[in-house]
C-alpha cells in the first residue's frame, strides 16, 4: 500500500492546506478549497429497468435519480445524474476498489457499464455568500435559488473548462468537478475572480 505522502492531489502545488490555516473564514465572501481523491464511479444503464436500479440501490444504498440534473444522496454516497443513461456514484476517497467490483457483480447479465473515473477529476469547492457572484463570471447557467438549488447538478462550461457543478447546500456551497489537467487553470482563474469578493481558503 502506498503511503499517503506519495499520493498527490491535483492542486497540491498550491499549498492549500497551509493557506487554509491563515484563517479569514468568518469574514470571507467566498471560501475555496480542494476536495481531493474523491471516489467517482461512472455507471451506464437503463433507468427503466428495475434490475438495473435495484442493483445500484443494493450496492450503494441510493436510488438512481431519474430527474435530469438532480442528485440523490444517502449516507456518504451520492448519485449524480449526468444523462438519461449515465450517472456518477460519488463518495469518500478510496472506495473504488470495493465499489467497482461490487457494481459489476450486481450488473451481471445486464447491459450496464461501470468505470472508475475517480482519478480523472478533482473537486474545487466553493462556498459563501458571494459564491454565486464568482460562478457568474464563468458559468452561463442561471444559479438563482429559484432555479438551481441544493441537490441539483449540471454539466456545463466554467471559464473555458468543462465542469460538473453540484450545489450541496444553500449557503450556497458547490462542488465543481473538473478534469485534472484543467484544474490548475481553473483554480487560478477562480481564485483571481474570488479575490475580488473576499477570499479564504477552506480546509
Amino acid at each position, binding site marked *: 500500500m502506498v503511503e499517503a505522502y506519495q499520493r498527490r492531489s491535483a492542486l497540491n502545488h498550491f499549498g492549500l492546506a497551509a493557506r487554509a490555516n491563515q484563517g479569514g473564514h468568518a469574514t470571507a465572501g467566498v471560501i475555496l478549497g480542494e476536495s481531493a481523491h474523491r471516489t467517482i464511479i461512472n455507471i451506464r444503464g437503463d433507468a427503466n429497468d428495475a434490475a438495473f436500479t435495484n442493483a445500484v440501490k443494493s450496492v450503494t444504498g441510493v436510488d438512481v435519480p431519474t430527474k435530469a440534473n438532480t442528485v440523490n444522496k444517502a449516507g456518504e454516497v451520492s448519485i449524480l445524474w449526468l444523462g438519461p443513461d449515465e450517472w456518477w456514484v460519488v463518495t469518500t476517497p478510496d472506495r473504488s476498489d470495493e465499489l467497482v467490483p461490487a457494481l459489476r457483480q450486481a450488473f451481471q447479465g445486464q447491459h450496464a457499464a461501470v*468505470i472508475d473515473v475517480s482519478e480523472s477529476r478533482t473537486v474545487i469547492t466553493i462556498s459563501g455568500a458571494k459564491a454565486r457572484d464568482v460562478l457568474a463570471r464563468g458559468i452561463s447557467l442561471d444559479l438563482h435559488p429559484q432555479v438551481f438549488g441544493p441537490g441539483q447538478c449540471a454539466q456545463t462550461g466554467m471559464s473555458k473548462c468543462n465542469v460538473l457543478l453540484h450545489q450541496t447546500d444553500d449557503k450556497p456551497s458547490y462542488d465543481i468537478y473538473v478534469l485534472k489537467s484543467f484544474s490548475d487553470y481553473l483554480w487560478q482563474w477562480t481564485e483571481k475572480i474570488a479575490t475580488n469578493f473576499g477570499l479564504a481558503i477552506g480546509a
Partner: protein
Amino acid sequence: MTAQKNRLGQGGRIDRTKPLRFTFDGKIYYGYQGDTLASALLANGVTLVGRSFKYHRPRGILSAGAEEPNALIQLGLGDRTEPNLRATQIELYDGLVAESQNRWPSLTTDFGAANSVIQKFIPSGFYYKTFMWPAKAWMFYEKFIRQAAGLGKGPTEQDPDRYDKLYASCDLLIIGAGPSGLATALAAGRTGARVILVDEQQELGGSLLSERTAEIDGKAAADWVAAAVAELTAMPDVTLLSRTVAWAYYDHNSVSLMERVTDHLGPVAGANQPRQRLWRVRAKEVILATGAIERPLVYSDNDRPGCMLASAARTYANRYGSMRGQRAVIMTNNDGAYRTALDLTDAGVTVFAVVDLRSNPQGELVKAARAKGIEIIAGHAITGVKGKLAVTGVDVMPLTADGKGVTSASRHIHCDLVLSSGGWQPTVHLHSQTRAKVVWSDDIQAFVPGDKLPGQNNRSIGGAHGVFRLADCLAEGHAAGSEGAAKLGFGGQSGQAPTVSDEPAEEALLPVWIVPSDKPVGQGGKHFVDYQNDVTAADVMLAHREGYRSVEHLKRYTTMGMATDQGKTSNVNALAIMAGLRNVEIPSVGTTTFRPPYTPVTLGTFSGIDKGDFLDPIRKTAMHQWHEQHGAVFECVGQWHRPYYYPKPGESMHDAVNREVKAARTGVTIVDATTLGKIDIQGPDAAWFLNMVYTNAWTKLEPGRCRYGLMLGEDGMVFDDGVTSRISENHFHMTTTTGGAPRVMSWLEEWHQCEWPDKKVYFTSVTEQWSVMALNGPLSRKLLEELTTDIPLDDDSFPFMSFKDGHLAGVPVRIFRISFTGELAFEVNCKPSHALHIWRALMQAGEKYDITPYGTEAMHVLRAEKGFIIVGQETDGTITPYDLGMGWIMAKSKTDFLGRRSLTREDTKRPDRKHLVGLLTDNPNEVLLEGGQIVAHVKDKPPMDMIGHVTSSYYSPNCNRSIALALVKNGRNRMGETVYLPYEGKVIPARITEPKFFDLEGKRING
C-alpha cells in the same frame, strides 16, 4: 474658482458644491459633479469642439446623447488614452484631460481644412474613382490616404485597466430607464419578477431628467424618478444598472451590456474596481424602452458650431444649467420644439424666434410660446447660417407656397445658437439587431418596430415604438411590466399605473427633408446629412445621378451612416431625400439593418481577465511540475503543454534532442505520454463496434492483448490511429492521438446514437483517469524489474502488444508493452495521484543507467526513424491507408467498416496517388524544411509542377544523417529516383527511398 460664463446660478442636476477641474486642448476649465464633458464645455462657452472627418469643418456639439456625431474626443493620456468618445456621454471627473481630434496644429487653425477649399474636387466616390485605377496603384496611394484618415489615436501601450465580465439571467430585461422603462420595472418588480433595468446614462430617468415642468402622480418628474428608483432599489430581485449600454441583441433574448463601472471616477480613483464590465444577459422577455432620437433639419450650413438639436438645448438648459445668456433661433417642423423655446426662456436663454416650416401652427405649445412673447415666424425657413468658428446669425426667408423654395427678401437675425427639430426617430436599433423588420409610420414620419421574430420575446414601448406622449409612455410601461410578469407566472399585484394630467396636445409635423435655401442645393452653403462622415444632401443627389439609388448603394457610395455613430441622426434624412429624388415612398428606398454594437464597445470588456495565461486553458499532466523543475522547454499540443526537450546547461535544442534520441536506442529513456486520448468501451457489441470503426479485425483479439488500429472517415481518408487493448471479453481500452481525443469520442457517440442505437455498447472518456509514462530503450526492462515484484517482464510472459496489471514502486499500475520508437518499450499507466511518485522512483532507480527524459521532438525523430506516421502530419484528410503503404492493416475478411466503400472509388484506387515515401538528401547534413515542395524537374522560376511535399524532416543521430518523410505522386513507383526541392536561392536534390531509415528488420523491439 474660474467662472463658468454660461452656467445658471441654480437648477439642474449638477452639484455646485463639487467643482471639477478639467482641461480641453490644454486649457483649464471648471465644471461640476453631474456634468458631462459636453455640458461643462457649453457652460464655459466653448462651442468649437472638433473638426469633421473629410473637410475638417469646424464643428460644435449637436446632441446631448449617444447619437452625437461631432463632439468626438480623445480622452486621457498615455496607456489610458481613448479616441472617438462622445463628449455628450463622458462624465466629468476632476483632472479629466480631453483633446479635440482631427485637427493640426490646433482646433482654430487647422491645415487639413484645405480639404474644405478643394471640396468641389473631392465629392462622394472620389477615392473609388481616383485611386482605384490603375488597380495596382492603390498599393502606392493607400499609405498616404490611411495616414490622412481616422479621427483619434489608439494607445500604443498595454491597457493597464482591469475588466470584468459575467453572465446574468432574469425574467424581464428592461432597456432604457425613462418613463416607459421605469413604469415597466415598477409594475413587474412589484409582482416579484426578476428584473434587470439598464440605462446608458449616469442616472436613471431618461427624458424625465430633462423635464422642467412635467408632473407624474402629482410630483415633479425628478421627484417621481427618485421615488421610483428608491422603490426599485428596495426590491431584492431587481437589479438597476446605470451607466450601462445594451449594445447587442442576439438570438433567444441574449443581450450584451457594457457597464462603465469607474470611467466616471477617472483613472486613479477606480483602481480597485474594474473599469468596465460586460454583462451577458439571458432574459425571458426583453422590454425595449430605448426612447427616440431627434432628427436635425437639413438646412444650409447646418454644421456651424452653435447648431444644435432643439431637445439637446433643452437638456443642457434644464438638466445642466449650462446655456445661460445664449441667444437662440429655433427652426422646427413640429410642436415639440416649442417645449425647448419655453424652457430656454425660463432658463435665461433669449429665444429670438421660432422659425416654423409650417404655415399656420396653432398647437397648445405654440400658443404658450406666443403668450410668452416669443416671436413665431411661420411658413419661413432658415436659409443660411453665418459664422465660421461659431454661429453669428441666421438668414430667414419665407417659403414658397409649395414649400420647395424660398422667396422675397431675407431677414438676418443675430444669434449664437441655432436649434432645429425635424421630428423624432424611435431608437429601433436593438429591435433591428434581432433581424426583425422596421416599418414606416406616416403619422410620425419615422420607422417604427415591425413584428418581432419568432424565438425572440420582446416588446418595444414608449418612444422606441413612436409613442411620445408622457401619459401614454407610462401607461404602456405599466402594461408591459404587469402583463410580462403575469405571462411568466408572477401573480402579485403590480400596483397603479402612474398618471399625468394636463399634457398639451400637439399638431402633426410637416415633413421637410431639405430646407430650401436661396441657392440650389450644393451651391453656396452645405446641407449636411451625415455630420461625422461629411455627407451632404448634394452627395445624396450625386449618388442618385450616378445610379446608386438603393439604400445599400447610397450608403456605400457616400459612406452615409458608416461612421462611428452609425448614422443615428442621418439615416432617415438621407433615405427621405433619396425617396424624394426617386419620387417614391420612403420605405421603398429601403431601410438600414442595424448591427451590434449600438455604440462602440471596448475590447477590454470582451477579454475580462481572460488574457495572458488566462487566454486559454493550459492543460498540465501530473508530472508537469517535475518537467518544469528539470528545465523542460514546453511545446503547445492543443491546450496541453508538453515537454519539447530537456536541455542540459549549455546545450542547444539540436544537442539536447540528439542526446535524447540516441539514449532511446542505447540506454533507457522516459517520456510523459499522458496526453494520448483514452476511451473505455464496454458492452456485448464492443468488438462489433471496433470492427466498424477500425479497418482491421478485432473479434479474435484475446483479452490481455493490444492491437494497432487505423480509423477512416466515411471518405476513406485516415482520421485517427492508436492502440486498443482488450481488457475482457466485452471491455476494451482504446487510445487515440492527443489532438484527436475529443473528435474520436464524438465520432463513436455519433455512430452509436445516430446509426446503430441498438448496439449494446457504452463509451466513456478516461483520458485523464490514467497518467502514462513510456520507457523506451534496451535497458527499460532491466529498470522496470527493479521496481516490480508481481509483473513478469520476460518476452514469453509479457510479449510485445500485450498488457499486465500489477504494481510498480508499490502502487498499482497497468503496463502496456507497446512501442512508438521500435525499441523495447513499456508504457506505464497509473493513477495521476501516483504519477509523480512513480516517475521519481523510475528516475531514481534509473540514475545508474543514465535514464534520459525526452520530449516531443525526440519522440518525433524516433518514430520517423522507424517510419511510423503521425496522423495530421503524414496525413491531411486526403490520404488513404494505401497511400501510406499500410494496405496490411486493411482487413480483407470484413464485409464493412467505415470508409470501406469510398476506397473502391476510381480516384481512391488510382495507382499514381500521392504515396508516403522517404527522402534522403545528397548532403547528409542538409535537413529539409517540413512543408517543402517537391518537383521532378526544376525550372528557372516558378511556377513549377509540384509532385508532393515534405511531411516530416529531422536530423537523425542514429542514422548520422538527415531523414525525411514525404508524400509524392506515384512515389512508390519512383524508388531511387532523384527529385528536387527548390528553395529561395538553391535547389536541394533528394533520393526517394522506403519510408523507414533505422532497424529495417524490426529486430530491436525485443531489446
